[in-house]
C-alpha cells in the first residue's frame, strides 16, 4: 500500500513538474527585502524585510541613527512614504538631508514619552500605506523600555504582517525578542579623528583635528533568512557639516582566517 502511494506521488510530481515546482513540498514564504544601501550590512543581512519587525539595538554613539538614515534614504529614494516616531525629539533634519533623505516624504512625530510613542506607532500602523515606520527609543532609559510587555511588540509585528511596511525599532537593549524578524546589535568602536592617529592621546592642539567618522561594529543577532554568522566591521564616513575629503572604509569580518579587504572611495 505504501509502495503504491509512493508510486502515485512520484507519478503526480512528474506530471506537474513543469507547472508546479514542488507540489507536495511546503510552500516557502518569500520575504521581500529592501537594502540599507550599505553594502556590508546588505551582505550580512540581505536587507530589511518587508512585513516584519527589525530591531537595531546598541549603546550610545554606536551608529543606530546612521543606519536609520540610510534606511530612510533608501526608502524615500524609491518613492515610499516613511514615518519616524521620535521618542525624545532627537531627530536632526540636517543629518537626514546630508544622508539624502527626501524630507518631504518623511512624517516626523515628535513624542515626549514612551506612551505617546507606542500610541503613535499604533495609529500609523492602523493608517497603513507607509513603506517604513521607525520607532526610535534609543535615547529613552533602557529600564523604561524594558517594561513594555512583549505582547506590544507581537501586536506590532502582526499589524505589519502581510503588508509591505517595514517596522524598524531602535533601542539600547534588545526588547522585541523573537518578535523581530531581523535583529542587529551595534557596538561602539574607536572613532577617527583627522589627522589619523592610533593613539588615544589627548591632543594638545585640537584645532588641527576634525571628527572624521567612527567605526560601527554590527552583529547579526537574529535573522529569519540566514543564521547568525558573526559580525562585520564597517566604518562610517564623513561628518555631517564637514567637507568631503577622500574617505576610506574597511570591512573586516570577525574570523581570524579571513583576509582584510580595503576599498578606497572618494
Amino acid at each position, binding site marked *: 500500500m505504501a509502495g503504491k502511494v509512493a508510486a502515485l506521488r512520484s507519478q503526480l510530481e512528474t506530471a506537474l513538474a513543469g507547472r508546479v515546482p514542488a507540489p507536495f513540498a511546503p510552500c516557502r514564504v518569500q520575504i521581500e527585502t529592501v537594502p540599507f544601501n550599505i553594502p556590508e550590512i546588505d551582505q550580512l543581512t540581505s536587507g530589511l524585510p518587508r512585513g516584519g519587525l527589525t530591531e537595531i539595538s546598541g549603546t550610545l554613539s554606536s551608529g543606530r541613527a*546612521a543606519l536609520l538614515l540610510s534606511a530612510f534614504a533608501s526608502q524615500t529614494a524609491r518613492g515610499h512614504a516613511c514615518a519616524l516616531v521620535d521618542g525624545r525629539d532627537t531627530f536632526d533634519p540636517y543629518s537626514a*538631508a546630508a544622508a539624502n533623505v527626501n524630507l518631504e516624504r518623511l512624517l516626523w512625530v*515628535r513624542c515626549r514619552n514612551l506612551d505617546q510613542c507606542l*500610541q503613535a506607532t499604533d495609529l500609523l500602523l492602523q493608517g497603513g*500605506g507607509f513603506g517604513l515606520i521607525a520607532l526610535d527609543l534609543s535615547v529613552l532609559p533602557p529600564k523604561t523600555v524594558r517594561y513594555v510587555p512583549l505582547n506590544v511588540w507581537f501586536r506590532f509585528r502582526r499589524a505589519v504582517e502581510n503588508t509591505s511596511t517595514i517596522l524598524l525599532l531602535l533601542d539600547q537593549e534588545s526588547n522585541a525578542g523573537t518578535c523581530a524578524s531581523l535583529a542587529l546589535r551595534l557596538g561602539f568602536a574607536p572613532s577617527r579623528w583627522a589627522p589619523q592617529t592610533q593613539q588615544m592621546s589627548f591632543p594638545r592642539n585640537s584645532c588641527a583635528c576634525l571628527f572624521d567618522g567612527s567605526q560601527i561594529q554590527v552583529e547579526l543577532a537574529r535573522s529569519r533568512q540566514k543564521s547568525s554568522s558573526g559580525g562585520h566591521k564597517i566604518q562610517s564616513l564623513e*561628518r*555631517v557639516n564637514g567637507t568631503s575629503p577622500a*574617505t576610506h572604509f574597511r570591512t573586516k569580518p570577525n574570523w581570524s582566517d579571513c583576509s582584510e579587504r580595503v576599498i578606497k572611495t572618494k
Partner: protein
Amino acid sequence: MAFASIYVPDFSIQAVVRNEPSLRHQPIALVEGSPPLEKVTAVNQAARQLGLSLGMTKSQARQFISIAIRPRSCAQEQAAHAALLDLGWSMSPRVEDTAADSIVLDLTGLASLFGSEETIAHLLAQRACGLGLIVHVAVSSNLEVAMHAARGFPGVTVIQPGEESTRLAPLPIQVFSPSAEIDETFERWGVRTCKTLAKLPLLDLSERLGQQGIQLHQWAKGASVRSLILAEPELRFEEEMALEYAVEELEPLSFLLGRLLDQLCARLSARCVSASAIRLRFALDHSYENESSLPLPNGHSDEKRSYYKKLLTLPVPMRDSKMLLRLLRLHLQSDPPRVPIVHIFLAADPAAPRVRQEGLFLPSAPDPEKLELTIARLSNLVGESNVGSPRLMDSHRPDAFEMTRFLPPQNALQAPAIGASRDRMPVAAFRVFRPAPRAKVTLREGLPSHISFADLYGKVVAASGPWRTSGEWWREDAWHREEWDIEIHRHSASSAQPANSSLEPKKGVYRIFYDAMRQAWFVAGMYD
C-alpha cells in the same frame, strides 16, 4: 420640449424637518415672533388634522399634547432652497428659480441620459428624498402647466401634449395663488375649480378683473406660454442650524454636525464636486453663565454673542460625511469651544473631485483620506506642531527648521532615483538634544578635559574645536557660540566603579558648545 416642475409642499416645515428627520411623521407647528407674542405660521397635515390652525399663539399650540413646536428658521429655508437648486442642476443645466419652494427644469436632451420623462420625474423625486425633501414633480410641454400641476397634484404627474386643460380642470383655483380680493370675488361667483374658471367669457372677465383675470383664465385653460428664466448656477454649499437650547457637550454637537454634513455632502454629490475645505462657525452664548440659570432664547436682542471659527483644510477634495465628521471631532477635541453653542454654520469650499490613476508597479502610498485622519489623531496625541515634515530653513542658525504639513507623495509616478542613493556613503548621523542640557565643563589649558551633564560624568579623551559660530546680531535671540566635538568615556554618576573593574566605561561622541550670550556650557547633541 418638456419642462419638469418641482414643488416642495409645506416648505417651511420641510426646511426644519430636513435636519430632524425623526419629526417627519409627527404633527409639527412653526412659530414666529417675539415672546410672548409668538404665533403659529406653518403647520403640516398631521397638525391640521389635530385641529391646529395658523395664527394660534404658542401657548395655545402647546395645549395639543403630541405637537412638536419649532421656531421658523430663515437660514434653514435658505439651505433647503439651495438644496432644491442643487437637485435641479444635478439633472439639467437649464433651471429656473421660480420661488423659494419650487423650481422648473428644461428636460430637453436628457432622454438619452436618463430615459423617458416619467423616469426622469421619478428620479427627481428620489434624489430629493436623498436631500431630505419630499417633493411633487409634474412634467408638461407647457412650463406654466407644469408649475401649477406640481402645486396641485401630489407625487409624480406627467401631462401629455393636448391634455393640459383636461388635467388641470379639477384643480382648485388656489394653486394660482390669486390675490385675496380676487379669491373672494371667485368665491362669491361660485368659481372654485380651473374647469369653471376656464368656461367664463374672457371679455367679461377682463372687464371685471383686468389683466390678472385674463392671466388666471389663460392658466386655467393651460394656454399660457412663457420662456424659462434661467438661474445662474452657484457653487455655494452652506448649511445652518439655529439651536433652541445651547449645546455644551461634544456628543450632541457631533450628532448635529453629522446631520449637517450628511446634507452638505449630498448636495456636493448632486453637483459632482467635492469639498477642499470645511468652514465651521459657532455662535456662542455668553449669557449662559451658570448651570442653574435658564438660557436666553434665540433672537433675544440683548444676548451677547461671539463666534468660534474653525477652518479644516483637506489635503485632497473629499465628500465622505463620516470621514469629515471624524476629522471635525478630532479638531474640536483638541480645541473645544469654552462656551455653549446656540447656532451652527457649516460651509464647504467646492473643488473638482480627486481623480487618481494608480500604477501597477509604483510604490504604494498612504490613502489621503486615511492619512488625514491619522495625522489628526497624531496631532491630538502629541500636539499639532509636533507632527509633519521637517523643512530646512535658509539660515545659519543651528537646528533651524520648520514643521510643514505632510502630504502623500505626489510624484510617485516618476521613476525613483535608486542608483543615486546606492553610490552614497553612510553619514555619521547626529542626534540633537532639545532643549540642550546645561553642562559643567572642566578646562585644562583651554581644552575640555572633563564634562558632566544630566546624571552623567565623563572624561574627554579627544576633542576638536573650538569652531565659532554666531549670527543675527540684530535680533534679541542672536547666537554666539563655540562648538566642540568631543569623545568622552563616561561613567554613570550613580555608580562608582572600582579601579579594577572589568567593565568598560561607556563611550560616546558629543558636540558641546559654550554660549557666549548666556555664558554657560551646553550639550548640543550626540553622534550616533
